[in-house]
């Protein structure tokens, strides 16, 4: 049941991405490029539609004591604004604007056989694996180089979740 429901949610997500225009790199870049003269505001409406539905649903659903299929809600609770957060988001935005893909549309477009996505996805996987290696090294670095940004007690980070 858990697998079937997750599969169904993924399917609905994919339909939303394609209908919204997120699997058309030119459209995504046309939205990000507000200077281009031919600005396409469509993707602001994708976000608006998603926020409207999820914003209301989130408040209703979290009134429950638990989800339907699992023992508890696992919603991120961190509130700290770190250099990593800003650097990561800046890198992501840059890559997003270069290729016109963010992770969801890249996966959906791979299944559709889009050549660009078939090039992008292996890069994305490599980038994620690279981060894993870099992150482990950073955690092993002597404390003197990280003490400024974070006290040693806080080094044991909770699993990062988006």
């Amino acid at each position: 049941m858990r697998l079937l429901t997750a599969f169904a949610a993924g399917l609905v997500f994919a339909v939303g991405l394609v209908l919204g225009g997120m699997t058309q790199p030119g459209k995504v870049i046309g939205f990000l490029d507000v200077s281009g003269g031919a600005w396409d505001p469509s993707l602001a409406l994708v976000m608006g539609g998603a926020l409207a539905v999820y914003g209301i649903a989130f408040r209703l659903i979290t009134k429950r004591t638990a989800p339907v299929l699992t023992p508890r809600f696992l919603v991120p609770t961190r509130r700290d604004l770190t250099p990593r957060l800003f650097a990561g988001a800046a890198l992501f935005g840059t890559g997003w604007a270069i290729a016109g893909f963010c992770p969801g549309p890249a996966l959906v477009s791979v299944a559709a056989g889009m050549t660009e996505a078939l090039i992008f996805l292996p890069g994305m996987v490599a980038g994620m694996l690279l981060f894993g290696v870099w992150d482990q090294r950073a955690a092993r670095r002597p404390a003197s180089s990280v003490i400024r940004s974070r006290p040693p007690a806080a080094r044991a980070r909770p699993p990062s979740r988006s």
Partner: protein
Amino acid sequence: MANFTPFASLLGGALIGLSAALMLLWHGRIAGISGIFSGLLRRSDVGELGWRAAFVLGLLAGGLLLSLVHPGGFSVDVERSPVAILAAGVIVGFGTRLGSGCTSGHGVCGISRWSPRSLAATGTFMAAGAVTAAGVTHLLGGAL
């Protein structure tokens, strides 16, 4: 504004919101694609692999299905070399892990619950995207 698709985009967005709501209702999880997908690449939390794989398979099945009934949904319309696309993939993969999320996790799920981290991340990636896109248009003639 020639390519503006307000109704399709609003409906698409609503479906994304619905999917994220179902993940929360059923699994108590945030529908952050970069987080769900990258979880498949880690050897830790093995018990989490099932639902993550099922969600990603749903995404892939949706892509396959839609490419058959609505191929126009996958038009590219932009000039990018394979090297640029591959490099962008690496940057997106690394950046979404470093910043703990992407458009779905931060942009939709995080902003909906007024997470300060997600608001900051979304503002940052939108700004970086706008600067990069404008740079490619004006400094590189629209191709990369």
